[in-house]
Each structure stands twice: as structure tokens, then as C-alpha cells.
């Protein structure tokens, strides 16, 4: 089974700095990691390969330093890594991002049997890109999966959706996005990490290699635009109360009442 795992490099600590000109995040100088749910997806992919054979390809779109995350994925056991990177891709929204990634996937030979990704990322938290890749490639999708088993040409997956536990059979090729319950992530042995970092087997594909025009990517290829960034923290009232436990409890209950979360006391 040929599996593609889409991973995104995300800031490890939300140490946020903003490029106020371009209204994007400054990624330089921020510690980075593989998005945790993408790491779970990778683990699931490696596990499936263990049972069904085949190859695991990790694919990431991002600035050149995303290569670190791909090396980490190779160290974890992925067979090959592709970095989709081009200055023209900066400022892509989810519509444009999914377009670039779908194009990269469509160039793979043989076409993969399974696409895996995390259900959402810890930085932008939209969960859009997975289903949008599936749509562009005309593939079925199942999101938020927490169990995968292989049955013939299909996968049987389980996912919790709006209070229902669904068991779903999906025909391959398909896209599956995973949630955190799927499988524990093994920590890497230092040796494997060093080997992966010393080997330079990461393919790099840019806009031209993918046959994309400038209009299809970046801000031009995007439907949405961030017109302003705001800091929300200032809206908190920040009132500090010292006193006896009785006083503190009374204030807490008063707040519950004021929010309409507790019936006001009769009499």
C-alpha cells in the first residue's frame, strides 16, 4: 500500500511575532515541530505499512526550514520525503494550499492508495486542507478517525462524530484525517534522528515543477485575506480578589448567577 502522509511544521511554543506589512506570522527564530496530529497520522501510516507493505511518503508544504520536520519523519521510518516550497506559496489560504498539495500528490507515480493527515493543526486550527485535498482529487474522505483497519480493498475506520461513534467503510484511494486517540507516538532513538539528518534525500518541488501559475498560488490563488490581526487578551476584566474562602466562594457564585448559569436564590 502506498501511503502519503501530509505533515505541517508548526511553531512549538506559540511565541508569536507578526509581520505587520504582510499580515503573516514570522516563522524565523521560532522553535518548530511536526504538528502533533500529523505525527499521529505518520505513526498510523507506518503501522499500516507494517501490515500491508508498500511505502510511506511524507509531504509538506512550507518554507525551506520545514525540511527539519521531514527529516524527523524520515527518522521515524518514512521511506521518502517531499518538500513543496516556493516563495510564491507564502500567504496561501486553505483553498490555495490544498490546490498546491493536491497538485503535488497528483504527480506521484504510482498514485497513492491512501492519504493521511491530522484532523487539524495547532497553529491555524482550521482542519480545512485535508477535505479540500480530497475534493480536488475527487477522493472520498473520512475525518477525525480514531481507529483504522484494513479489509481487502477498503479501510474500515471508526470516528466519533457529533455524539455518535460511526464505523465507516471507505473505498481506496481515500483521504483519512486522524485525531489524537488513534495511536501513541513512539519517541525517536537519537541514532535514527542523526542518520536522517545526515542523509539528504528530500525532494523539493516548487511552483514551476508543479506546473502552477502565479495566479493559482499565494494571495492571488486565495479566496480569503486576513485584513487585520487583533490581540484578544485585552478583553479580559482581570479583576483580582483576595479574602476568606467564604468571600471567594460568594464571588464565584455571584458570577455564575450573573452569567445565568445558576438560578438565582429564591427569597
Amino acid at each position: 500500500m502506498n501511503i502519503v502522509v501530509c505533515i505541517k511544521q508548526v511553531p512549538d511554543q506559540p511565541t508569536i511575532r507578526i509581520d505587520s506589512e504582510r499580515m503573516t506570522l514570522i516563522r524565523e527564530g521560532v522553535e518548530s515541530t511536526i504538528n502533533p496530529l500529523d505525527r499521529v497520522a505518520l505513526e498510523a501510516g507506518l503501522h499500516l505499512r507494517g501490515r500491508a507493505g508498500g511505502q510511506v511518503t511524507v509531504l509538506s508544504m512550507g518554507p525551506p526550514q520545514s525540511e527539519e520536520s521531514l527529516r524527523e519523519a524520515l527518522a521515524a521510518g518514512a521511506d521518502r520525503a517531499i518538500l513543496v516550497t516556493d516563495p510564491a506559496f507564502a500567504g496561501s489560504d486553505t483553498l490555495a494550499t490544498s490546490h498546491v498539495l493536491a497538485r503535488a500528490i497528483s504527480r506521484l507515480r504510482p498514485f497513492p492508495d491512501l492519504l493521511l493527515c491530522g484532523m487539524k493543526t495547532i497553529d491555524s486550527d482550521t482542519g480545512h486542507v485535508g477535505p479540500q485535498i480530497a475534493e480536488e482529487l475527487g477522493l472520498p474522505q473520512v475525518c477525525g478517525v480514531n481507529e483504522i483497519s484494513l479489509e481487502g480493498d477498503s479501510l474500515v475506520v471508526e470516528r466519533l462524530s457529533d455524539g455518535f461513534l460511526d464505523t465507516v467503510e471507505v473505498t481506496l484511494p481515500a483521504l483519512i484525517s486522524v485525531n489524537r486517540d488513534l495511536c501513541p507516538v513512539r519517541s525517536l532513538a537519537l541514532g535514527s534522528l542523526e542518520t536522517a539528518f545526515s542523509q539528504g534525500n528530500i525532494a523539493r518541488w516548487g511552483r514551476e515543477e508543479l506546473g502552477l501559475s502565479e495566479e493559482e498560488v499565494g494571495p492571488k490563488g486565495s479566496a480569503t485575506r486576513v485584513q487585520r490581526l487583533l490581540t484578544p487578551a485585552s478583553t479580559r476584566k482581570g479583576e483580582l480578589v483576595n479574602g476568606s474562602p467564604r468571600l471567594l466562594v460568594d464571588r464565584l457564585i455571584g458570577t455564575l448567577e450573573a452569567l445565568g448559569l445558576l438560578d438565582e436564590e429564591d427569597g
Partner: protein
Amino acid sequence: MDKSGLLHGVWVFGDYRNYFQNRVTLQLIAKGRELAETLRTRVTVLLLGEAVHQYAMEYIAHGADIVMVAEHPDLRCYQVESYTNVVARWAEAFKPDILLGGATSFGREFFPRLAKRLKTGLSADCVRLEVDPDTGLLLQTTPAFGGNLLAEVVSSHRRPQMATIHPYVFKELPHKASAVGRVVYPEIEVKANTQVRVLRSRRQQARGGNLEDAQIVIVGGRGLGSREQFKLLFELAELLAGEVGATRPVVRAGWADEERLLGQTGKTVKPKLLISIGTSGALQYTTGINGAETIIAVNRDAHAPIFKMADLGLVGESSAVLPLLLETLRKRI
């Protein structure tokens, strides 16, 4: 099909499953009304399923002008592909300006696919929606970077302008039995989806409770001191009809399951009220709670960072406050 332009305006996806608990559609109709009045247009609710027309009157009573219904046996289960086919065709035919949907599990799976098919933008988990008085564009405010920032997003040249919204962000309008609206049944073409087959579907609570949908979330940190103290949070949650969340150190200590973990590597919650007890306020944790409407923090250290993001900070020993709070609530409820 729509020569009058009746259906151009604001569309709301109608999610009628579990109608009496799931109020997100009603909340979006209320917001849709407000936007439609500013834009001098109408609110249309989309209703897809099998024998679902009875919900149409409910939506009209809660503020919808029009309900667009698609009834077909193959639409009985909420299914991304068949629903995308129907709604995309309608959107192409009637050209709505705005399309809003609830950020439910289904919504998170369905709206991105629909937006992609319509080659339009989508903003996720909006906390504010308003019409820009100068441009008439929908200003979609959405949390970015774990809620550390808010991004004001616009979609200036593609339609519809699409947004998903978490439950309880907006308030529903009261039920008005005398409300008048129109129910329409536009043409549909339904193809059964054979690629994704739901074999079984059974009702189940999430293992971490319904943390992500809870109106009240109570979070305990290491400052609680012991597993026994942490257990008191479950009693508190039961009294307040809330859910219990935990920080990473608490999960690591084994006081709570991983499913209750909030923050960077756990869940993100957006309750009406979050009570954070014995948590210092590390960034890895607070990124998961930024979206709470009101935050009350209890901590013995007046300088704990958690107080910087609390609406109400109570400086005291949780081991004294918590039992007294439980005792006081039990007497009242």
C-alpha cells in the same frame, strides 16, 4: 430558476439532528437575520434529509424567511459527498452572498469540501461576524494561533462568503409561532455515495465527556495537590452540568485521562464559563482555553500568569475554596 433573486441573501445550513440540544442552527439564523437586515436581504435555511419538512416551521418561527428543502432517502444520513452535491448545485444556481454553518464534527468535514467545490473561501470557528459598512463585505473574525490572536478575514471577490461558527457564540431568537415564511423545494439530483458506507452508528459520549461542546468547563491543575482534590472537580462539574478538563502535569500524574487534556497538544474549548483551579497558566495550557467567554481562576499565588487572562481571579487555597464551594452549591441546587 430564481428570477426574483429571492434566494440571493444569507444562507444558513440547517442541522436538525438532536434538535432539542443542538441549537447552533437557531443561533446562526439569529445572526443571519442581523446580517440580512443590514444587507437588506433575506435569510434562507437549507434543510436536507428524509421527511424533514417539519423542521421548516421551526426555523421560520426562529427567524428564517425561507427554508429550502431537499428530501430524499439517500439524504437521510448526514453524508459529506451527497450533501456537497446538493448544496453546491443550489449555490451555483441561486448565488447566495453568505453561507453560515455550525462548527460541528459534520460541519468541519462538510464545509471545507463544499467551499473547495465552489472555489470560495471559508473561515473556521468565527467568534464575530459583521458587515463592513464601507464595503458591504462580511468581516469574519476568527481565532488564530490557539486564540492568541484574532484574525479579521474577508473574502472580497468570491461567493458565497462562507464561515463556520461554534455553538453558543450567538444567541437564538425566541420562538415566534406567528412568524411567516416560505418553504421551497428546488430541484435536486441525488446520487447514492458508494465510496463511504456507514456500517454502524451508535450514540456515544466522548471519553473525555463533551468537553468541546460544554457550556461550563472546570479545569484542575497540579496546584490542587492530590488526586483526591482533583476528584472533587467531577462533583463540581455534576452540580453545574459542566465537564472536567485537565492540564498536562495532571495527566502526567495520572489524575486524569489524556482525553481531558486541554491546550496545545490537547483539546480546545470554548465554553461560556471556564473555572481554572490550581493551574499556573502555562502557555501550552492557555492556548486551549482562550476561546472561553468568561474565565474564573483560583490560585494561591497572586502572581500566577493565569490571573492575567482571567476575568475574575480568586487568590486563595483551592483546598479551602473547593469544599466550601461544593457545600454551598449542594445547599442551593
